[in-house]
């Protein structure tokens, strides 16, 4: 059997077990996880699943069985109580239900429940009360549950239920807990109380309405019982009685004091009738308030029925006091009214609906009588009574009777020849709701109408002043207006001319005559004017005056003449006259009065019109001036609001008049920064001040405009009413001014900032302006020192004539240029000045001043002077150099000649040894001379180039001088100066130490001593020092030829010698002292000479003292001695490597060293040097030439130092410069020797390192 068969067999066995109900069976899964394992896995999982599900089913079954058991128990319980309860249960009129407390599922309900809810039992049982939504308010159900759980029972709980049809039923519930099968159940007994509640509410509402009716009734109501006791009184009755209701109720009506005692029998009788079921008529009775005030009431008593029986009476009481009193008042009023009518001034009458006059008052009767109409009009038809009335009044009366509305109108009557005006009112008089009569009141307004007419005329004439175009039209208007009340067919207006006593007639209308003017004298018009009295005169009266020659007979006589003077403010200006040629009654006194009255207005109107015409002319002029002005003209109110602007305003500021009128001008055209200035201007003008100023305003588009402003207050009758402003655009001028100012400013700036002194003077030369530079040049503190003074004052006196001629030249030619003057400053100091001046001319090219530019050229002059001196010196120097070169040439050639000559002689083989040595000595001496000359020249070059480097080190002065003395003692003989004593003079107790460069100090001393030896023929040369003021003062004193005093100054100059001729005798470059001076200066000291001709010289210099150890500590002589002995050394056993490319130099060194018994190795270049250095490890010292082929000494030393730090390496080179010394020491050299090296120096140095 294969493995797979085995596995399949296992699967089959497992399936058999599962099939037999053993679901625990599992098949093992191999590690192959192949198809067979997959099948096995599936079977395993299936059996597990099945097993699980079977287990779950078993659990469910068990639960089900438990439930069934519970149900059975419930059923048993129910069966037990069923018999007892079913009868009660089913027959109960109340609805009963049993439901589970926990979920509300109905267990049982009775028939009443079915009826109440509309659901049948089968529908309900087994379903929850919540499914049906029976509880309309869940909270009640919860409340019920809570109460039950707490108390076990709940009774009389009112709630609403929602029944099957959706309607709400009000129910009253009682509930208790039942335990069925140990589970709490709810037994609910309910009753439908909807109808009871409905009936209660209806009853309540009815009662409420009735009570409200009584409570809020405006009539007083009291309720009485059968005995007459007051059971209730409403608020209105309480108000009527003036007592609170509670004090009224509970007492018998007879005891209530409101009802009058005398009326009690009547009340008792009425109550009795009412209680018998009768309803008596309402009664008007008296009634007393609490405070005793008598009132009238209307009382209506009715029975109160209850269930078919009369239980009492209800009395409704109404206060009728006001009505009763009104009727009484009316009656009284009727009498008063008749009396009043008669007392009235206006005519009054009353007519009936039949238009019959029923009443007339006294005024009417009188009035009728006055106009000739019968006053007995009562009882007549009104048309008959008042025949003058218009027929239309009939309709008006009818209208008043029907509409009941008052009519008021003005009426015009014509009674005879009289015209009358009346203000008539027709007033309805009511009786009840009907108009019973019409009262007519007639107010006579005839006079008022006339007055009104006159007023109207005056108004029209006044108005005509404005509406007429000229005086003539006004006069016509006056004539027309007066014509409405007078006959003005013959009418004139005369103006009185006082001067010539004439009357001009601007208006003259006449049927007969025609005049333009006539004399005032002897005319009626003139007469009237003179007397200042109006005149109404008939022809006969006029004739009398003519006859009496008071008047002349002018024009056609009129029947009646009416005239009044025309006045303005009490001054008579003329007359107003009208006349009639036919009717002498055409005018009367009344007319005279009216005309006189009207004349005042006419006079005023004429004057106004004349003034107006004048104003119009002036206004036209003004308008023309205003509008035609080329300037911008504005008119503002005192508070700055624009009233008027002319056309130029828009051109200047860009605003149209509509945009600006009524607005504040300052807000429109004043820029922000000029607001305060504008405000000041406005305030000044507002105070009545005239303003003329120039300022800046702005265009509508913001452009700034320079303007001149004239502000003038306008006053009328002493009061300022407005401001008149004129703006002129001065922008161009301002810009020009600004440009000019800027230009001036620039010029001024140039003037003031110019480094040259600039003055402006008038044509006489008096200074008017100056700049700071001018003040500086002339050493002035301020402008006052210059301005006002004549410029010529600052010229030195001896040149002032030249100054004046210069001024004249400027005036004549317009300018002068670069004229040099010597001038004086304020302090009297002389200065050299370069002066240029030119005329200043005005616009008309006329000279107005002179501008001068003064340049202080004192410095330049001094420089020029210096330059001249320098030039002279240079020329002198040039000569010196030439002399020097000649001298130098001689100095160099002399030794060179000797060297070359004797060298040539040395070639000769037949020379004796002595001679040869002599030649060599000469060559050596001359070589040394040549070296000195070259050294001097190099030093001069280095000093001039600033290349001299000073290497400071401490040094003992005494030691130093002793060395010098020692060395120069040897050289002295070379100079053939053995006879000259060289001596040292040093203070014994001093032992100074200075910090200085020994090499340079040595050079100085050599120079001085050599000079001293050179110029000393006999005597001695003494060197030494003294300590003076913390300085060491060296000296070299000789007894030589000395230096004349004049030449002592120049001995330190280069190329100078006291006497160039001396040079030829004494030789020398003339550089030694110059170099010494420069070196002393470099070392921080000074050098000088003290000398006397033929006696000797002492050259001294001093250097700073560093410290001063006292004497006796060290003996310089001993040191020197040691060193000197050191030159006699024996270097046997020592191996010395000499690196030198120049064989001559090597030979020199070799020649010396071979006497020291040392072993010598020679390297010709740097490479050989290194080879020997490595091949000869026992070297004791290296003499290193710094300049070698292949590898220079500096680099070679560096290489050697890497291998051997101890071996002494002595640099040896021709580069006698400090740089070489530093470089070689840096590279690792132990010491340094400059070529040409002396045997002594070489010996001393070697001794130092080979000991």
């Amino acid at each position: 059997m294969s493995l797979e068969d085995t596995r399949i067999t296992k699967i089959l066995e497992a399936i058999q077990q599962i099939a037999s109900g053993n679901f625990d069976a599992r098949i093992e899964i191999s590690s192959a996880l192949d198809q067979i394992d997959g099948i096995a896995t599936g079977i395993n999982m299936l059996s597990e699943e099945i097993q699980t599900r079977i287990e779950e089913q078993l659990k469910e079954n068990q639960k089900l069985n438990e439930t069934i058991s519970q149900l059975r128990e419930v059923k048993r319980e129910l069966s037990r109580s069923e018999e007892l309860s079913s009868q009660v249960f089913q027959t109960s009129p109340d609805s009963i239900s049993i439901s589970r407390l926990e979920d509300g599922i109905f267990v049982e309900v009775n028939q009443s429940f079915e009826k109440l809810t509309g659901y049948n039992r089968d529908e309900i049982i087994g379903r929850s009360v919540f499914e049906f939504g029976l509880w309309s308010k869940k909270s009640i159900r919860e409340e019920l549950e809570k109460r039950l759980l707490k108390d076990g029972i709940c009774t009389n709980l009112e709630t609403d239920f929602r029944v099957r049809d959706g309607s709400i039923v009000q129910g009253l519930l009682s509930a208790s807990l039942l335990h069925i099968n140990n589970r709490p159940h709810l037994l609910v007994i309910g009753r439908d109380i909807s109808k009871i509640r409905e009936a209660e509410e209806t009853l309540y509402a009815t009662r409420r309405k009735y009570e409200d009716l009584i409570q809020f009734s405006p009539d007083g109501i009291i309720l009485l019982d059968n005995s007459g006791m007051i059971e209730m009184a409403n608020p209105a009755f309480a108000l009527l009685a003036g007592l609170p209701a509670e004090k009224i109720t509970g007492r018998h009506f007879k005891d209530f004091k409101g009802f009058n005692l005398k009326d009690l029998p009547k009340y008792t009788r009425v109550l009795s009738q009412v209680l018998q079921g009768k309803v008596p008529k309402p009664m008007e009775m008296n009634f007393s308030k609490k405070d005793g005030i008598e009132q009238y009431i209307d009382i209506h008593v009715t029975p109160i029925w209850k269930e078919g029986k009369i239980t009492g009476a209800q009395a409704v009481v109404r206060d009728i006091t006001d009505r009763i009193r009104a009727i009484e008042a009316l009656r009284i009023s009727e009498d008063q009214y008749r009396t009043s009518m008669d007392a009235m001034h206006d005519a009054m009458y009353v007519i009936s609906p039949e238009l019959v006059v029923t009443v007339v008052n006294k005024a009417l009767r009188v009035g009728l009588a006055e106009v000739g109409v019968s006053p007995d009009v009562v009882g007549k038809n009104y048309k008959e009574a008042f025949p003058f009335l218009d027929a239309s009044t009939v309709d008006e009366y009818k209208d008043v009777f029907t509409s009941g509305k008052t009519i008021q109108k003005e009426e015009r009557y014509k009674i005879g020849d009289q015209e009358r005006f009346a203000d008539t009112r027709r007033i309805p008089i009511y009786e009840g709701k009907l108009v019973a009569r019409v009262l007519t009141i007639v107010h006579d307004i005839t006079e008022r109408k006339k007055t009104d007419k006159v007023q109207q005329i005056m108004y029209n004439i006044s108005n005509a002043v404005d509406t007429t175009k000229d005086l003539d039209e006004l006069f016509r208007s006056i004539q027309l207006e007066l014509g409405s009340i007078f006959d003005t067919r013959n009418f004139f207006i005369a103006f009185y001319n006082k001067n010539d006593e004439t009357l001009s007639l601007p208006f003259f209308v006449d049927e007969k005559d025609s005049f333009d003017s006539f004399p005032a004298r002897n005319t009626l018009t003139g007469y009237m004017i003179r007397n200042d009295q109006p005149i109404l005169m008939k022809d006969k009266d006029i004739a009398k005056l003519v006859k009496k020659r008071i008047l002349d007979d002018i024009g056609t006589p009129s029947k009646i003449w009416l005239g009044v003077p025309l006045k303005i403010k009490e001054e008579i200006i003329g007359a107003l006259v009208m006349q009639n040629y036919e009717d002498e009654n055409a005018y009367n006194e009344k007319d005279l009065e009216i005309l006189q009255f009207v004349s005042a207005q006419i006079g005023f109107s004429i004057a106004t019109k004349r003034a107006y015409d004048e104003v119009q002319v002036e206004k036209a002029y003004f308008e023309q001036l205003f509008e035609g002005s080329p300037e911008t003209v504005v008119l503002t109110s005192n508070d700055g609001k624009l009233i008027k602007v002319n056309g130029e305003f828009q051109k200047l500021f860009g605003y149209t008049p509509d945009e600006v009128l009524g607005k504040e001008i300052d807000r429109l055209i004043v820029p922000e920064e000029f607001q305060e200035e504008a405000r000041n201007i406005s305030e000044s003008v507002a105070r009545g001040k005239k303003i003329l100023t120039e300022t800046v305003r702005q265009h509508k588009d913001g452009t700034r405009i320079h303007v001149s402003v004239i502000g003038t207050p306008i006053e009328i009758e002493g009061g300022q009413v407005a401001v008149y402003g004129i703006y002129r655009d001065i922008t161009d001028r301002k810009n020009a001014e600004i440009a000019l100012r800027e230009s001036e400013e620039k010029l001024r700036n140039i003037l003031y900032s110019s480094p040259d002194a600039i003055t402006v003077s008038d044509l006489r030369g008096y200074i008017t302006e100056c700049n700071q530079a001018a003040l500086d040049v002339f050493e002035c503190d301020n402008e006052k020192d210059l301005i006002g003074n004549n410029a010529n004052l600052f010229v030195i006196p001896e040149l002032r004539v030249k100054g004046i001629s210069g001024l004249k030249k400027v005036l004549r030619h317009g300018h002068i240029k670069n004229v040099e003057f010597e001038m004086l400053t304020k302090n009297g100091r002389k200065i050299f000045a370069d002066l240029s001046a030119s005329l200043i001319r005005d616009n008309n090219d006329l000279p107005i001043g002179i501008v001068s530019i003064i340049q202080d050229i004192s410095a330049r002059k001094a420089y020029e002077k210096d330059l001249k001196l320098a030039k002279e010196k240079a020329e002198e120097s040039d000569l010196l150099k030439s002399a020097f070169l000649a001298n130098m040439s001689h100095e160099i050639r002399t030794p060179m000649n000797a060297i070359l000559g004797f060298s040539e002689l040395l070639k000769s083989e037949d020379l004796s040894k002595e001679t040869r040595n002599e030649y060599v000595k000469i060559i050596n001496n001359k070589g040394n001379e040549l070296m000195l000359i070259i050294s001097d020249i190099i030093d001069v070059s280095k000093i001039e180039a600033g290349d001299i480097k000073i290497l400071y080190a401490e040094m003992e002065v005494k030691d130093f001088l002793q060395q010098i003395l020692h060395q120069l003692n040897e050289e002295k003989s070379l100079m053939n100066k053995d006879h000259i004593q060289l001596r040292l003079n040093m203070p014994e107790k001093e032992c100074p130490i200075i910090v200085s460069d020994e090499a340079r100090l040595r050079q100085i001393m050599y120079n001085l001593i050599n000079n001293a030896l050179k110029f000393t023929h006999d005597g001695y040369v003494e060197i030494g020092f003294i300590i003076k003021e913390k300085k060491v003062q060296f000296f070299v004193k000789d007894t030589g030829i000395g230096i004349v005093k004049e030449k002592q100054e120049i001995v330190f100059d280069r190329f100078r010698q006291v006497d160039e001729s001396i040079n030829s005798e004494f030789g020398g470059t003339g550089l030694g002292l110059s170099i010494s001076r420069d070196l002393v200066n470099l070392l921080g000291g000074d050098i000088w000479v003290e000398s006397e001709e033929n006696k000797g010289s002492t050259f001294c210099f001093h250097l700073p003292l560093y410290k001063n150890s006292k004497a006796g500590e060290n003996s310089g002589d001993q040191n020197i001695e040691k060193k000197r002995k050191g030159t006699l050394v024996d270097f046997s056993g020592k191996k010395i490597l000499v690196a030198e490319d120049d064989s001559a130099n090597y030979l020199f060194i070799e020649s010396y060293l071979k006497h020291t018994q040392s072993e010598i190795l020679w390297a010709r270049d740097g490479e050989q040097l290194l080879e020997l250095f490595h091949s000869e490890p026992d070297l004791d010292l290296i003499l290193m030439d710094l300049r070698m082929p292949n590898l220079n000494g500096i680099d070679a030393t560096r290489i050697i130092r890497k291998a051997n730090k101890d071996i002494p390496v002595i640099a040896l080179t021709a580069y006698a410069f400090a740089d070489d010394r530093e470089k070689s020491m840096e590279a690792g050299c132990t010491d340094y020797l400059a070529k040409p090296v002396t045997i002594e120096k070489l010996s001393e140095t070697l001794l130092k390192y080979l000991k």
Partner: protein
Amino acid sequence: MGIISFNIVKQTDTGKGRVMLYKDGFMHQIYNDSVDLTIKDSLKELEIYKKEYCTEGKRPILVDITNLKSVSKESRGIYASEDTASVLIKAALLVCNPVSRIIGNFYLGLNKSKMPVKMFGDVGEAVEWLKQAHDKK
């Protein structure tokens, strides 16, 4: 079966396997050879997912059930629970042999998972599906 070549940023031993988190944001659960997965193992895995991998939010997971030998019913219940769905967005079941396929089918058929679960025989497709789901999220 494709090759997974994502950058693993974290991995943890879950006892019977290990879970990894790739840079792309999805997790990868693999099992040791022939593992019988019990409820204890599943609870431990879920605890690791919750505390170490899904602290910042739900993640998709690739569950390689190839090496499983069996999975208990209770264990399957764990994977189908709300608890698991609270940390995982989707799960791709990688099945590459008959046993794992049967297990996957049982899981999908009988356990109503609270998250989308899909079975794949190819890891590339599974990852693509997970990434889609992940990207959509």
